[in-house]
């Protein structure tokens, strides 16, 4: 089977990068370096998987291949929370200093925000495009509000906020990693009964309803899964949702299939490869002079433009 061979190939590359990350460039002090690298690489795998997974689902329910869940405004919400905390309580406050408090606060804010948004959507009859529109508007609003407050605060305080604006795997807290994994596995279990509908959902609403998919209910449940996964991943390492666009489209190009079994697996593998590879480059080539967000946004941005140009040609 061709798909299985492709998946195996990616699996080998991903495993190779993970091992290279763990074991290369160590002169001594194995006891010190290895546990830290293990935490880092685990965070990479977990967030990579969460981002890829949620982007696949999100693109399927919106039947749109150039959207990412960041359109729901969760990243902006995250930055707004960080900015608000610094603005009102200062960078020395417990919410900023204690990463667990910060994590819980961020996750709570993002999940609450998305639940309110979805609830409002349901009352309005459940048009998903309305949700996206509101998501974009609120996201922009949150970003503007954050920028406004960032301009007002002390430049030193701003540096603390700025640090949060880019995803980083360098200071992942082990306890938080554990909590995140538990939440993610929980949402995965919640998702599992709906997995069989995914291929049909990709045909669009009319076909899905015709084929007996309880469409509205599934959309709601899947949106919750997406929101929880994105919230957890963002709170753990910072905003990296753009990565999803990159890896899911690569998966589409690579496999050329609609089958979610394969799409999900390959997207997750691409995601791990991109993050592990990116982190390797950041650490060993740039020696931490840049962050992985910058790399991913740079490559992802170029790819996005390429996608737009190509879609344009297809007309």
């Amino acid at each position, binding site marked *: 089977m061709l798909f299985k061979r492709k998946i195996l190939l990616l699996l080998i590359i991903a495993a190779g990068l993970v091992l290279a990350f763990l074991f290369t460039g160590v002169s001594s002090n194995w006891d010190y370096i290895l546990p830290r690298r293990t935490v880092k690489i685990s965070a990479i795998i977990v967030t990579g998987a969460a981002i890829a997974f949620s982007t696949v689902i999100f693109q399927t329910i919106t039947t749109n291949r150039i959207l990412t869940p960041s359109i729901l405004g969760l990243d902006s919400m995250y930055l707004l929370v960080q900015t608000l905390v610094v603005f009102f309580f200062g960078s020395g406050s417990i919410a900023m200093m204690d990463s667990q408090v910060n994590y819980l606060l961020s996750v709570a804010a993002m999940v609450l925000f998305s639940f309110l948004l979805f609830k409002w959507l349901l009352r309005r009859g459940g048009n998903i495009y309305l949700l996206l529109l509101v998501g974009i508007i609120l996201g922009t609003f949150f970003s503007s509000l954050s920028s406004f407050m960032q301009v007002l605060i002390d430049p030193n305080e701003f540096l603390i906020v700025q640090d949060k604006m880019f995803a980083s795997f360098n200071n992942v807290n082990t306890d938080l990693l554990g909590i995140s994994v538990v939440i993610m596995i929980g949402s995965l279990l919640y998702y599992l009964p709906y997995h069989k509908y995914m291929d049909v959902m990709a045909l*669009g609403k*009319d076909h899905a*309803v015709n*084929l*007996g998919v309880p469409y509205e209910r599934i959309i709601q449940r899947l949106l919750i899964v997406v929101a929880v996964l994105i919230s957890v991943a963002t709170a753990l390492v910072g905003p990296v949702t753009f990565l999803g666009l990159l890896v899911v489209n690569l998966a589409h190009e690579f496999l050329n299939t609609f089958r979610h079994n394969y799409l999900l697996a390959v997207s997750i593998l691409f995601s791990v490869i991109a993050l592990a590879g990116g982190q390797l480059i950041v650490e060993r080539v740039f020696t931490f002079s840049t962050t992985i967000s910058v790399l991913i946004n740079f490559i992802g941005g170029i790819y996005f433009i390429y996608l737009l140009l190509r879609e344009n040609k297809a007309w």
Partner: protein
Amino acid sequence: MVKVLNLFKQYGTRSVVEDVSVSIPKGKITTFIGPNGAGKSTLLSMISRLITKDEGEVKIEGQEINRWKTEDLSKKISILKQSNHIHLRLTIRELVSFGRFPYSKGRLTEEDEVKVEQALDFVALSDMQHKYLDQLSGGQRQRAYIAMVIAQDTEYVLLDEPLNNLDMNHSVQIMKTLSRLVRELGKTVVLVVHDINFASCYSDYIVAMKNGRIVEEGAKEKMIEPAVLNSIYDMDIDIHTINNQKICVYFQ
């Protein structure tokens, strides 16, 4: 039996379907005709639960549509809309296999494969079943979609303007296929058609709509009459009998 009782639908303040009641006879081809914006497609979409109704009842086999489990309904009634843009790269066979989803939930059994095979045969697409949808002509693509609803194997098959954008040859092929669906497989086919002559040549029962209401309904012989057509389309239409078929001449 599909029975519609006092159905209403509004978009904003505009009424699209107003107090429509109709029964669709079993084992026949029923055609909805009428000018653009008469509410035919909306009615079809409400009967097949693609859009929600504001008021009224749709009864399928005596049971209100909202009381059906959507999963069970998908084995009873199928609908094909006029624009079927699917942004996936699918082969004909993959598309038709989706028609079996209500039964197998994506894991095709041997019986499903047989049904898919039969559906492909029925629309004469077996030879090219591994071609991708984007490589097909409009007529072939439409036949592929029809094969999907055939594979779905429902008693009621609803089609919203299946002849849209097709040339005469392809239109005739599609209509012949639909008519075989009724005669050979005993299905009930309901469709929206704009070309009055296709309605005249192929349907058993005709329902005419205008401004969200049903203006006339009846057996084809009764419906294809100058007075009736005038009340629907507001134009004088000559009717000639050619080869035992009533043909409407409305070009001048």
